[in-house]
């Protein structure tokens, strides 16, 4: 084969193709002022650029939730409040296997392995919440989601969550009741945007390829009902 001259039209086309391919496979950049995030070393535990871990080895090393789509996931007012008074959302940490130990009746959370989230002052919390709100990768996953607050599950909500779809196997629906390997859901309604919840339940893997939450292939109406059930849970007050 003759050597390809990169100054020829074919050579330029190949170079352009390669450049585009590299852009597609590389971590996408994002907008927003990240100075304050850097000051607080947020990236030591959180991914501020995508994509999500594509291997189990990478998944196991993740210390905190990915934030590169924080603006599509979290309610900004919740972020601002939580950063000033952070409370654990995942009872067994980010990857549960890194924080459990054998127990007499079942595996238990090894609380000594868990660390507290940094607590911020109100000014920094407000600025960081505003910056996180600009991180909006995966926008295509939520742009077609339409939350319908009228699709109430009524008294069947808990039955759907606990029995029909088995979500409580991994999630707590009130403090001290439910599974521990996933995030608590009784605060999800104040923490998360409804469109994100809809999209995430529809396909957890679309957001987080290797995550240990399965796709139960729920019909849209029931996804709406589960989201409204969780929003209702968040309106209750809990003694923790």
């Amino acid at each position: 084969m003759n050597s390809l001259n990169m100054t020829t039209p074919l050579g330029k086309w190949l170079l352009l193709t390669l450049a585009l391919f590299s852009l597609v496979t590389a971590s996408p950049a994002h907008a927003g002022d990240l100075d304050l995030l850097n000051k607080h070393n947020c990236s030591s535990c959180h991914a501020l650029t995508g994509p999500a871990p594509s291997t189990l080895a990478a998944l196991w090393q993740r210390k905190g939730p990915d934030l590169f789509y924080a603006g599509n996931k979290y309610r900004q007012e919740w972020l601002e409040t939580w950063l000033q008074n952070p409370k654990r959302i995942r009872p067994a940490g980010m990857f549960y296997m890194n924080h459990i130990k054998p127990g007499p009746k079942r595996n238990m959370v090894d609380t000594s392995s868990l660390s507290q989230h940094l607590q911020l002052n109100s000014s920094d919390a407000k600025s960081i919440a505003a910056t996180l709100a600009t991180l909006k990768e995966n926008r295509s996953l939520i742009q077609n989601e339409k939350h319908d607050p009228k699709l109430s599950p009524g008294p069947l909500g808990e039955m759907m969550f606990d029995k029909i779809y088995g979500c409580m196997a991994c999630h707590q629906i009130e403090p001290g009741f439910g599974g521990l390997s996933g995030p608590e859901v009784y605060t999800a309604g104040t923490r998360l945007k409804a469109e994100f919840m809809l999209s995430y339940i529809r396909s957890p893997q679309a957001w987080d390829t290797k995550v240990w939450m399965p796709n139960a292939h729920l019909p849209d109406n029931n996804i709406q009902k589960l989201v409204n059930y969780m929003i209702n849970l968040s309106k209750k007050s809990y003694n923790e």
Partner: protein
Amino acid sequence: MNNCCFIIILIMTSLLQISSASAESAKDNYRTYCMQCHGMAGQGMGLNIQDMSVQPRDHTDTKAMSTRTDSELFKVIKEGGLAISKSSLMPPWADTLTDNEIDDLVKHLRKLCQCDNQTK
């Protein structure tokens, strides 16, 4: 090496990296997806079981696991407990695991139970 060959090798390497990302061992998949309920030792004593109405299967229970065929185990992993008239607390993993990975998990379960049932 000429430029053309270099570019082709670069593209092939990138494609290989992408395709290899989805292949995981049964041991690692079991650790990530199964242990949360079936436990670190596979004995059904997982982190999540306290409030479950139906307890997860003990994968080291030779007698109980012998009653399940390989195809039943494949089906329950892929489609969930309801697919074999068992609890909905066992979810479907079809979107998480490939068929090959589920096949490997079935073999892994047979090692845990030290049992066999090849009936199709």
